[in-house]
Protein backbone atom coordinates (compact mmCIF):
# COMPACT_ATOMS: atom_id res chain seq x y z
CA UNK A 1 0.00 0.00 0.00
CA UNK A 2 2.70 2.32 1.01
CA UNK A 3 4.74 1.70 -2.12
CA UNK A 4 1.70 2.39 -4.34
CA UNK A 5 1.05 5.77 -2.74
CA UNK A 6 4.71 6.47 -3.05
CA UNK A 7 4.64 5.64 -6.75
CA UNK A 8 1.50 7.71 -7.37
CA UNK A 9 3.09 10.61 -5.59
CA UNK A 10 6.15 10.28 -7.80
CA UNK A 11 4.05 10.13 -10.98
CA UNK A 12 2.19 13.26 -9.93
CA UNK A 13 5.53 14.90 -9.38
CA UNK A 14 6.89 14.19 -12.86
CA UNK A 15 3.56 14.49 -14.70
CA UNK A 16 3.66 18.28 -15.31
CA UNK A 17 7.01 17.99 -17.05
CA UNK A 18 5.83 14.99 -19.09
CA UNK A 19 2.62 16.76 -20.12
CA UNK A 20 4.63 19.78 -21.12
CA UNK A 21 6.72 17.48 -23.29
CA UNK A 22 3.55 15.87 -24.65
CA UNK A 23 2.33 19.30 -25.75
CA UNK A 24 5.56 19.85 -27.68
CA UNK A 25 5.12 16.39 -29.24
CA UNK A 26 1.57 17.34 -30.18
CA UNK A 27 2.74 20.61 -31.68
CA UNK A 28 5.38 18.92 -33.85
CA UNK A 29 2.84 16.27 -34.84
CA UNK A 30 -0.04 18.62 -35.66
CA UNK A 31 1.99 21.16 -37.62
CA UNK A 32 3.71 18.40 -39.59
CA UNK A 33 0.33 16.94 -40.57
CA UNK A 34 -1.19 20.30 -41.41
CA UNK A 35 1.64 21.25 -43.77
CA UNK A 36 2.87 17.90 -45.06
CA UNK A 37 -0.52 16.51 -46.19
CA UNK A 38 -1.16 19.32 -48.72
CA UNK A 39 2.53 19.72 -49.63
CA UNK A 40 2.64 16.08 -50.73
CA UNK A 41 -0.03 16.64 -53.37
CA UNK A 42 1.93 18.78 -55.85
CA UNK A 43 4.85 16.34 -55.60
CA UNK A 44 2.50 13.37 -56.01
CA UNK A 45 0.88 14.95 -59.06
CA UNK A 46 4.29 16.04 -60.29
CA UNK A 47 5.75 12.56 -60.24
CA UNK A 48 2.75 11.43 -62.32
CA UNK A 49 3.17 14.28 -64.76
CA UNK A 50 4.03 13.88 -68.43
CA UNK A 51 6.12 17.04 -68.26
CA UNK A 52 9.82 16.63 -67.61
CA UNK A 53 10.09 19.79 -65.51
CA UNK A 54 7.40 18.62 -63.10
CA UNK A 55 8.23 14.96 -63.09
CA UNK A 56 11.96 14.84 -62.39
CA UNK A 57 12.18 17.46 -59.63
CA UNK A 58 9.32 15.68 -57.86
CA UNK A 59 10.96 12.30 -58.26
CA UNK A 60 14.30 13.67 -57.05
CA UNK A 61 12.68 15.29 -54.03
CA UNK A 62 10.91 12.07 -53.04
CA UNK A 63 14.04 10.03 -53.58
CA UNK A 64 16.14 12.36 -51.45
CA UNK A 65 13.79 12.65 -48.48
CA UNK A 66 12.67 9.03 -48.44
CA UNK A 67 16.15 7.77 -49.10
CA UNK A 68 17.98 9.30 -46.13
CA UNK A 69 17.37 8.87 -42.39
CA UNK A 70 15.10 11.43 -40.81
CA UNK A 71 17.59 11.89 -37.98
CA UNK A 72 20.29 12.76 -40.52
CA UNK A 73 17.98 15.33 -42.09
CA UNK A 74 17.42 16.87 -38.65
CA UNK A 75 21.18 17.16 -38.14
CA UNK A 76 21.64 18.59 -41.62
CA UNK A 77 19.07 21.35 -41.22
CA UNK A 78 19.96 22.11 -37.60
CA UNK A 79 23.78 22.08 -37.73
CA UNK A 80 24.40 22.99 -41.33
CA UNK A 81 21.61 24.31 -43.54
CA UNK A 82 19.98 27.02 -41.44
CA UNK A 83 23.24 28.25 -39.87
CA UNK A 84 24.80 28.33 -43.36
CA UNK A 85 22.06 30.53 -44.79
CA UNK A 86 22.22 32.66 -41.65
CA UNK A 87 18.65 32.09 -40.58
CA UNK A 88 18.53 31.83 -36.79
CA UNK A 89 15.50 29.59 -36.21
CA UNK A 90 14.83 27.87 -32.92
CA UNK A 91 15.24 24.12 -32.79
CA UNK A 92 11.52 23.30 -32.71
CA UNK A 93 10.87 25.30 -35.89
CA UNK A 94 13.73 23.54 -37.63
CA UNK A 95 12.39 20.21 -36.39
CA UNK A 96 8.93 20.95 -37.81
CA UNK A 97 10.31 22.12 -41.17
CA UNK A 98 12.39 18.95 -41.45
CA UNK A 99 9.42 16.75 -40.55
CA UNK A 100 7.15 18.52 -43.03
CA UNK A 101 9.68 18.06 -45.85
CA UNK A 102 10.25 14.41 -44.92
CA UNK A 103 6.63 13.43 -44.50
CA UNK A 104 5.51 15.32 -47.60
CA UNK A 105 7.76 12.96 -49.59
CA UNK A 106 6.04 9.90 -48.10
CA UNK A 107 2.59 11.39 -48.65
CA UNK A 108 3.54 12.27 -52.24
CA UNK A 109 4.35 8.63 -52.93
CA UNK A 110 1.05 7.54 -51.40
CA UNK A 111 -0.86 10.06 -53.51
CA UNK A 112 1.01 9.02 -56.64
CA UNK A 113 0.21 5.36 -56.10
CA UNK A 114 -3.42 6.22 -55.26
CA UNK A 115 -3.84 8.24 -58.43
CA UNK A 116 -2.23 5.52 -60.54
CA UNK A 117 -4.59 2.91 -59.09
CA UNK A 118 -7.64 4.59 -60.65
CA UNK A 119 -8.87 2.73 -63.73
CA UNK A 120 -8.06 4.37 -67.07
CA UNK A 121 -11.73 4.00 -68.01
CA UNK A 122 -12.44 6.86 -65.60
CA UNK A 123 -10.14 9.15 -67.58
CA UNK A 124 -11.71 8.01 -70.84
CA UNK A 125 -15.24 8.58 -69.57
CA UNK A 126 -14.26 12.05 -68.33
CA UNK A 127 -12.62 12.85 -71.64
CA UNK A 128 -15.60 11.59 -73.64
CA UNK A 129 -17.78 14.01 -71.67
CA UNK A 130 -15.51 16.92 -72.54
CA UNK A 131 -14.01 17.46 -69.09
CA UNK A 132 -10.64 19.23 -69.08
CA UNK A 133 -7.56 17.71 -67.50
CA UNK A 134 -7.92 19.69 -64.29
CA UNK A 135 -11.66 19.03 -64.05
CA UNK A 136 -10.90 15.33 -64.49
CA UNK A 137 -8.15 15.38 -61.86
CA UNK A 138 -9.94 17.38 -59.19
CA UNK A 139 -13.53 16.30 -59.89
CA UNK A 140 -13.14 12.64 -60.82
CA UNK A 141 -9.75 11.17 -59.96
CA UNK A 142 -8.70 12.77 -56.66
CA UNK A 143 -12.07 12.28 -54.89
CA UNK A 144 -11.83 8.56 -55.68
CA UNK A 145 -8.22 8.50 -54.51
CA UNK A 146 -9.08 9.79 -51.02
CA UNK A 147 -10.65 6.54 -49.88
CA UNK A 148 -7.79 4.45 -51.26
CA UNK A 149 -5.02 6.50 -49.68
CA UNK A 150 -6.60 6.71 -46.23
CA UNK A 151 -5.20 3.41 -44.89
CA UNK A 152 -1.58 4.09 -45.93
CA UNK A 153 -1.92 7.71 -44.73
CA UNK A 154 -3.14 6.51 -41.32
CA UNK A 155 -0.14 4.24 -41.17
CA UNK A 156 2.25 7.13 -41.79
CA UNK A 157 0.43 9.31 -39.30
CA UNK A 158 0.84 6.70 -36.56
CA UNK A 159 4.52 6.39 -37.47
CA UNK A 160 4.81 10.15 -37.22
CA UNK A 161 3.58 10.11 -33.61
CA UNK A 162 6.53 7.92 -32.71
CA UNK A 163 9.01 9.70 -34.99
CA UNK A 164 8.43 12.92 -33.09
CA UNK A 165 10.65 11.40 -30.38
CA UNK A 166 13.58 11.99 -32.77
CA UNK A 167 13.43 15.76 -32.40
CA UNK A 168 15.09 15.45 -28.99
CA UNK A 169 18.41 14.93 -30.81
CA UNK A 170 18.46 18.62 -31.66
CA UNK A 171 17.48 19.56 -28.13
CA UNK A 172 13.72 19.93 -28.37
CA UNK A 173 12.17 19.07 -25.00
CA UNK A 174 9.40 16.75 -26.12
CA UNK A 175 7.75 13.88 -24.28
CA UNK A 176 10.50 11.27 -24.47
CA UNK A 177 13.29 13.70 -23.66
CA UNK A 178 11.50 14.87 -20.53
CA UNK A 179 10.84 11.26 -19.52
CA UNK A 180 14.51 10.42 -19.97
CA UNK A 181 15.54 13.42 -17.88
CA UNK A 182 13.30 12.17 -15.09
CA UNK A 183 14.74 8.67 -15.32
CA UNK A 184 18.32 9.97 -15.31
CA UNK A 185 17.66 12.23 -12.38
CA UNK A 186 15.67 9.86 -10.19
CA UNK A 187 17.68 6.66 -10.46
CA UNK A 188 16.13 3.23 -10.10
CA UNK A 189 12.72 3.94 -11.59
CA UNK A 190 11.35 3.56 -15.08
CA UNK A 191 7.96 4.99 -14.10
CA UNK A 192 8.56 8.02 -16.32
CA UNK A 193 9.02 5.77 -19.34
CA UNK A 194 5.83 3.90 -18.50
CA UNK A 195 3.86 7.13 -18.26
CA UNK A 196 5.36 8.36 -21.53
CA UNK A 197 4.43 5.05 -23.20
CA UNK A 198 0.87 5.43 -21.92
CA UNK A 199 0.63 8.92 -23.39
CA UNK A 200 1.94 7.73 -26.77
CA UNK A 201 -0.52 4.82 -26.72
CA UNK A 202 -3.44 7.07 -25.87
CA UNK A 203 -2.45 9.33 -28.71
CA UNK A 204 -2.20 6.56 -31.32
CA UNK A 205 -5.41 5.00 -30.03
CA UNK A 206 -7.33 8.22 -30.68
CA UNK A 207 -5.79 8.45 -34.15
CA UNK A 208 -6.80 4.89 -34.90
CA UNK A 209 -10.39 5.74 -34.01
CA UNK A 210 -10.25 8.81 -36.22
CA UNK A 211 -8.87 6.92 -39.20
CA UNK A 212 -11.50 4.19 -38.81
CA UNK A 213 -14.21 6.84 -38.81
CA UNK A 214 -12.80 8.55 -41.91
CA UNK A 215 -12.45 5.29 -43.80
CA UNK A 216 -16.07 4.47 -43.10
CA UNK A 217 -17.20 7.93 -44.09
CA UNK A 218 -15.37 7.89 -47.39
CA UNK A 219 -16.58 4.46 -48.43
CA UNK A 220 -20.25 5.12 -47.75
CA UNK A 221 -21.03 5.31 -51.48
CA UNK A 222 -19.76 1.76 -51.84
CA UNK A 223 -22.48 0.36 -49.58
CA UNK A 224 -24.38 -2.31 -51.43
CA UNK A 225 -27.81 -1.37 -50.10
CA UNK A 226 -29.23 2.00 -49.11
Amino acid at each position, binding site marked *: MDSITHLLGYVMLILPSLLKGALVTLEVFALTIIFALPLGLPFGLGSNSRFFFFKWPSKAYIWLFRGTPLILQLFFFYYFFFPAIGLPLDSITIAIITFVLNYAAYFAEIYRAGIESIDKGQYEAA*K*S*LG*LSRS*QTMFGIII*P*QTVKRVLPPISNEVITLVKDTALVSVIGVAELLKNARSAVNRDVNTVAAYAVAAAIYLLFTFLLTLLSRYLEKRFSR*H*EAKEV
Partner: protein
Amino acid sequence: MEFVLQMQNITKKFGTLVALDNVNLSVQKGETVAIIGPSGSGKSTLLRCVNHLERITSGRIVIVGQELANTNEYGYVFYPKEAEIRRLCSNTGMVFQHFNLFPHMNCLQNICYAPIKVKGENPIDANKRGLALLELVGLTSKAEAYPAQLSGGQKQRIAIARGLAMDPKIMLFDEPTSALDPEITGEVLTVIRQLAQQKTTMLIVTHEMGFAREVADRVIFMDNGAIIEEGTPAEIFNTPKSERLQSFLRAML
Protein backbone atom coordinates in the same frame (compact mmCIF):
# COMPACT_ATOMS: atom_id res chain seq x y z
CA MET B 1 -27.53 14.73 -96.97
CA GLU B 2 -26.13 15.98 -93.73
CA PHE B 3 -23.10 14.16 -92.40
CA VAL B 4 -22.54 14.10 -88.68
CA LEU B 5 -19.33 12.15 -89.01
CA GLN B 6 -16.92 11.62 -91.87
CA MET B 7 -13.83 9.46 -91.56
CA GLN B 8 -11.62 9.34 -94.61
CA ASN B 9 -8.67 7.02 -95.29
CA ILE B 10 -8.18 6.33 -91.60
CA THR B 11 -5.06 4.37 -90.74
CA LYS B 12 -4.09 3.58 -87.18
CA LYS B 13 -0.94 1.76 -86.22
CA PHE B 14 0.14 0.56 -82.79
CA GLY B 15 3.85 0.20 -83.36
CA THR B 16 4.07 -2.17 -86.29
CA LEU B 17 0.54 -3.52 -85.85
CA VAL B 18 -1.91 -2.02 -88.33
CA ALA B 19 -5.20 -1.72 -86.42
CA LEU B 20 -7.01 0.29 -89.08
CA ASP B 21 -6.06 0.14 -92.72
CA ASN B 22 -7.41 2.96 -94.88
CA VAL B 23 -10.95 2.92 -93.52
CA ASN B 24 -13.70 5.18 -94.88
CA LEU B 25 -16.90 5.69 -92.96
CA SER B 26 -19.58 8.37 -92.94
CA VAL B 27 -22.63 8.65 -90.76
CA GLN B 28 -25.64 10.77 -91.68
CA LYS B 29 -27.88 12.63 -89.34
CA GLY B 30 -30.50 10.33 -87.79
CA GLU B 31 -28.78 7.19 -88.98
CA THR B 32 -28.03 4.13 -86.85
CA VAL B 33 -24.91 2.35 -88.03
CA ALA B 34 -23.82 -0.97 -86.54
CA ILE B 35 -20.25 -2.24 -86.84
CA ILE B 36 -19.79 -5.99 -86.58
CA GLY B 37 -16.77 -8.22 -86.98
CA PRO B 38 -14.51 -10.64 -85.13
CA SER B 39 -12.45 -9.60 -82.08
CA GLY B 40 -9.37 -7.62 -83.01
CA SER B 41 -10.85 -6.48 -86.31
CA GLY B 42 -10.44 -2.79 -85.36
CA LYS B 43 -14.11 -1.98 -84.63
CA SER B 44 -13.49 -0.48 -81.21
CA THR B 45 -10.33 1.28 -82.34
CA LEU B 46 -12.29 2.96 -85.13
CA LEU B 47 -14.89 4.13 -82.63
CA ARG B 48 -12.22 5.39 -80.24
CA CYS B 49 -10.60 7.44 -83.00
CA VAL B 50 -13.84 9.37 -83.44
CA ASN B 51 -13.59 11.07 -80.04
CA HIS B 52 -9.80 11.21 -79.78
CA LEU B 53 -9.36 8.38 -77.29
CA GLU B 54 -6.94 7.18 -79.95
CA ARG B 55 -5.01 9.39 -82.36
CA ILE B 56 -5.02 8.33 -85.97
CA THR B 57 -1.81 7.64 -87.88
CA SER B 58 -3.16 9.13 -91.07
CA GLY B 59 -6.46 10.20 -92.59
CA ARG B 60 -9.08 12.85 -91.99
CA ILE B 61 -11.92 13.10 -89.47
CA VAL B 62 -14.74 15.62 -89.75
CA ILE B 63 -17.35 15.98 -87.00
CA VAL B 64 -20.47 18.01 -87.85
CA GLY B 65 -18.61 19.79 -90.64
CA GLN B 66 -15.56 20.70 -88.56
CA GLU B 67 -12.20 19.08 -88.96
CA LEU B 68 -10.88 17.10 -85.99
CA ALA B 69 -7.87 15.66 -87.77
CA ASN B 70 -6.24 15.89 -91.16
CA THR B 71 -3.08 14.68 -92.83
CA ASN B 72 -0.84 16.93 -94.92
CA GLU B 73 0.99 16.00 -98.11
CA TYR B 74 4.01 14.76 -96.13
CA GLY B 75 1.86 12.30 -94.19
CA TYR B 76 1.95 14.35 -91.01
CA VAL B 77 -1.29 14.19 -89.01
CA PHE B 78 -2.38 17.34 -87.27
CA TYR B 79 -5.03 17.92 -84.66
CA PRO B 80 -6.19 21.30 -83.32
CA LYS B 81 -5.30 22.51 -79.80
CA GLU B 82 -6.54 20.54 -76.82
CA ALA B 83 -9.42 22.90 -75.99
CA GLU B 84 -10.61 22.77 -79.60
CA ILE B 85 -10.36 18.96 -79.65
CA ARG B 86 -12.48 18.90 -76.50
CA ARG B 87 -15.02 21.23 -78.06
CA LEU B 88 -15.31 19.10 -81.22
CA CYS B 89 -15.48 15.83 -79.31
CA SER B 90 -18.21 17.18 -77.08
CA ASN B 91 -20.43 16.62 -80.13
CA THR B 92 -20.02 12.92 -79.41
CA GLY B 93 -21.25 10.89 -76.46
CA MET B 94 -19.75 7.54 -75.61
CA VAL B 95 -21.00 4.42 -73.87
CA PHE B 96 -18.29 1.99 -72.80
CA GLN B 97 -18.28 -1.76 -72.44
CA HIS B 98 -17.42 -1.44 -68.73
CA PHE B 99 -19.75 1.52 -68.06
CA ASN B 100 -17.04 3.68 -66.43
CA LEU B 101 -19.53 5.44 -64.19
CA PHE B 102 -18.04 7.71 -61.54
CA PRO B 103 -18.32 5.62 -58.36
CA HIS B 104 -18.15 8.54 -55.93
CA MET B 105 -21.22 10.24 -57.44
CA ASN B 106 -24.82 9.14 -57.37
CA CYS B 107 -26.66 8.52 -60.64
CA LEU B 108 -28.05 12.01 -61.00
CA GLN B 109 -24.63 13.53 -60.26
CA ASN B 110 -23.05 11.22 -62.82
CA ILE B 111 -25.46 12.56 -65.42
CA CYS B 112 -25.34 16.25 -64.45
CA TYR B 113 -21.64 16.70 -63.69
CA ALA B 114 -20.45 17.33 -67.25
CA PRO B 115 -23.32 19.63 -68.33
CA ILE B 116 -22.70 21.78 -65.25
CA LYS B 117 -18.88 21.79 -65.47
CA VAL B 118 -18.35 21.80 -69.22
CA LYS B 119 -21.35 23.71 -70.51
CA GLY B 120 -21.80 25.84 -67.42
CA GLU B 121 -25.43 24.82 -67.14
CA ASN B 122 -27.34 26.04 -64.13
CA PRO B 123 -27.47 23.10 -61.65
CA ILE B 124 -31.25 23.35 -61.28
CA ASP B 125 -31.85 23.07 -65.02
CA ALA B 126 -29.24 20.34 -65.30
CA ASN B 127 -30.95 18.34 -62.56
CA LYS B 128 -34.32 18.74 -64.25
CA ARG B 129 -32.89 17.46 -67.48
CA GLY B 130 -31.06 14.72 -65.61
CA LEU B 131 -34.34 13.50 -64.14
CA ALA B 132 -35.93 13.52 -67.61
CA LEU B 133 -33.05 11.37 -68.87
CA LEU B 134 -33.45 9.01 -65.93
CA GLU B 135 -37.08 8.65 -66.94
CA LEU B 136 -36.05 7.95 -70.52
CA VAL B 137 -33.87 5.03 -69.37
CA GLY B 138 -36.48 3.94 -66.84
CA LEU B 139 -34.44 4.56 -63.69
CA THR B 140 -36.11 7.52 -62.01
CA SER B 141 -36.09 5.66 -58.69
CA LYS B 142 -32.28 5.35 -58.81
CA ALA B 143 -31.46 9.07 -58.93
CA GLU B 144 -29.86 9.00 -55.48
CA ALA B 145 -28.33 5.52 -55.76
CA TYR B 146 -24.58 5.05 -56.20
CA PRO B 147 -23.25 2.93 -59.09
CA ALA B 148 -22.15 0.18 -56.69
CA GLN B 149 -25.80 -0.33 -55.78
CA LEU B 150 -26.90 -0.99 -59.38
CA SER B 151 -26.96 -4.08 -61.56
CA GLY B 152 -24.87 -4.13 -64.75
CA GLY B 153 -27.87 -3.38 -66.93
CA GLN B 154 -28.87 -0.45 -64.76
CA LYS B 155 -25.31 0.88 -64.78
CA GLN B 156 -25.25 0.81 -68.55
CA ARG B 157 -28.58 2.62 -68.79
CA ILE B 158 -27.23 5.33 -66.48
CA ALA B 159 -24.12 5.53 -68.68
CA ILE B 160 -26.36 6.06 -71.72
CA ALA B 161 -28.23 8.84 -69.90
CA ARG B 162 -24.89 10.40 -68.93
CA GLY B 163 -23.75 10.39 -72.55
CA LEU B 164 -27.01 11.90 -73.74
CA ALA B 165 -26.87 14.68 -71.14
CA MET B 166 -24.30 16.59 -73.19
CA ASP B 167 -26.70 16.70 -76.16
CA PRO B 168 -24.26 14.99 -78.50
CA LYS B 169 -24.82 14.99 -82.24
CA ILE B 170 -23.76 11.35 -82.35
CA MET B 171 -23.72 8.59 -79.75
CA LEU B 172 -20.90 6.04 -79.84
CA PHE B 173 -21.54 2.63 -78.29
CA ASP B 174 -18.51 0.42 -77.67
CA GLU B 175 -19.89 -3.10 -77.18
CA PRO B 176 -22.50 -1.83 -74.71
CA THR B 177 -23.81 -5.28 -73.77
CA SER B 178 -20.62 -7.37 -73.87
CA ALA B 179 -19.97 -7.12 -70.12
CA LEU B 180 -23.57 -8.01 -69.21
CA ASP B 181 -25.22 -11.31 -68.38
CA PRO B 182 -27.26 -12.49 -71.35
CA GLU B 183 -30.58 -12.18 -69.51
CA ILE B 184 -30.10 -8.47 -68.81
CA THR B 185 -28.80 -7.29 -72.20
CA GLY B 186 -32.44 -6.82 -73.19
CA GLU B 187 -33.05 -3.81 -70.96
CA VAL B 188 -30.05 -1.98 -72.45
CA LEU B 189 -31.00 -2.89 -76.01
CA THR B 190 -34.53 -1.61 -75.38
CA VAL B 191 -33.14 1.81 -74.49
CA ILE B 192 -30.93 1.89 -77.60
CA ARG B 193 -33.85 0.77 -79.75
CA GLN B 194 -35.89 3.64 -78.33
CA LEU B 195 -33.11 6.07 -79.27
CA ALA B 196 -33.06 4.66 -82.81
CA GLN B 197 -36.80 5.28 -83.11
CA GLN B 198 -36.25 8.88 -82.03
CA LYS B 199 -33.69 9.19 -84.84
CA THR B 200 -30.69 9.66 -82.57
CA THR B 201 -27.55 9.37 -84.67
CA MET B 202 -25.65 6.34 -83.43
CA LEU B 203 -22.56 4.33 -84.22
CA ILE B 204 -22.72 0.98 -82.44
CA VAL B 205 -20.00 -1.63 -82.16
CA THR B 206 -21.77 -4.83 -81.20
CA HIS B 207 -21.67 -8.60 -81.05
CA GLU B 208 -25.47 -8.83 -80.93
CA MET B 209 -26.24 -9.85 -84.51
CA GLY B 210 -29.99 -10.00 -83.99
CA PHE B 211 -29.97 -6.52 -82.52
CA ALA B 212 -27.80 -5.08 -85.31
CA ARG B 213 -30.13 -6.57 -87.88
CA GLU B 214 -33.22 -5.17 -86.20
CA VAL B 215 -32.10 -1.69 -85.19
CA ALA B 216 -29.45 -0.60 -87.71
CA ASP B 217 -30.12 1.34 -90.90
CA ARG B 218 -26.74 0.23 -92.13
CA VAL B 219 -24.37 -2.53 -91.08
CA ILE B 220 -20.60 -2.50 -91.53
CA PHE B 221 -18.52 -5.65 -91.40
CA MET B 222 -14.88 -5.22 -90.46
CA ASP B 223 -12.03 -7.69 -90.45
CA ASN B 224 -8.28 -7.16 -90.05
CA GLY B 225 -8.64 -3.41 -89.69
CA ALA B 226 -10.58 -2.92 -92.93
CA ILE B 227 -14.20 -2.58 -93.93
CA ILE B 228 -14.95 -5.72 -95.92
CA GLU B 229 -18.60 -5.21 -96.64
CA GLU B 230 -21.36 -2.76 -95.86
CA GLY B 231 -25.03 -2.47 -96.63
CA THR B 232 -28.53 -2.69 -95.26
CA PRO B 233 -29.16 -5.35 -92.61
CA ALA B 234 -30.95 -7.44 -95.24
CA GLU B 235 -27.96 -7.28 -97.59
CA ILE B 236 -25.44 -8.10 -94.88
CA PHE B 237 -27.32 -10.85 -93.12
CA ASN B 238 -29.35 -12.40 -95.96
CA THR B 239 -27.04 -12.08 -98.93
CA PRO B 240 -23.47 -11.70 -97.66
CA LYS B 241 -21.16 -11.42 -100.65
CA SER B 242 -17.67 -11.89 -99.24
CA GLU B 243 -16.34 -15.22 -98.11
CA ARG B 244 -15.13 -13.71 -94.81
CA LEU B 245 -18.54 -12.30 -93.89
CA GLN B 246 -20.20 -15.58 -94.79
CA SER B 247 -17.88 -17.57 -92.53
CA PHE B 248 -18.17 -14.96 -89.76
CA LEU B 249 -21.96 -15.17 -89.83
CA ARG B 250 -21.85 -18.96 -89.91
CA ALA B 251 -19.68 -18.94 -86.80
CA MET B 252 -21.93 -16.44 -85.01
CA LEU B 253 -25.23 -18.21 -85.65
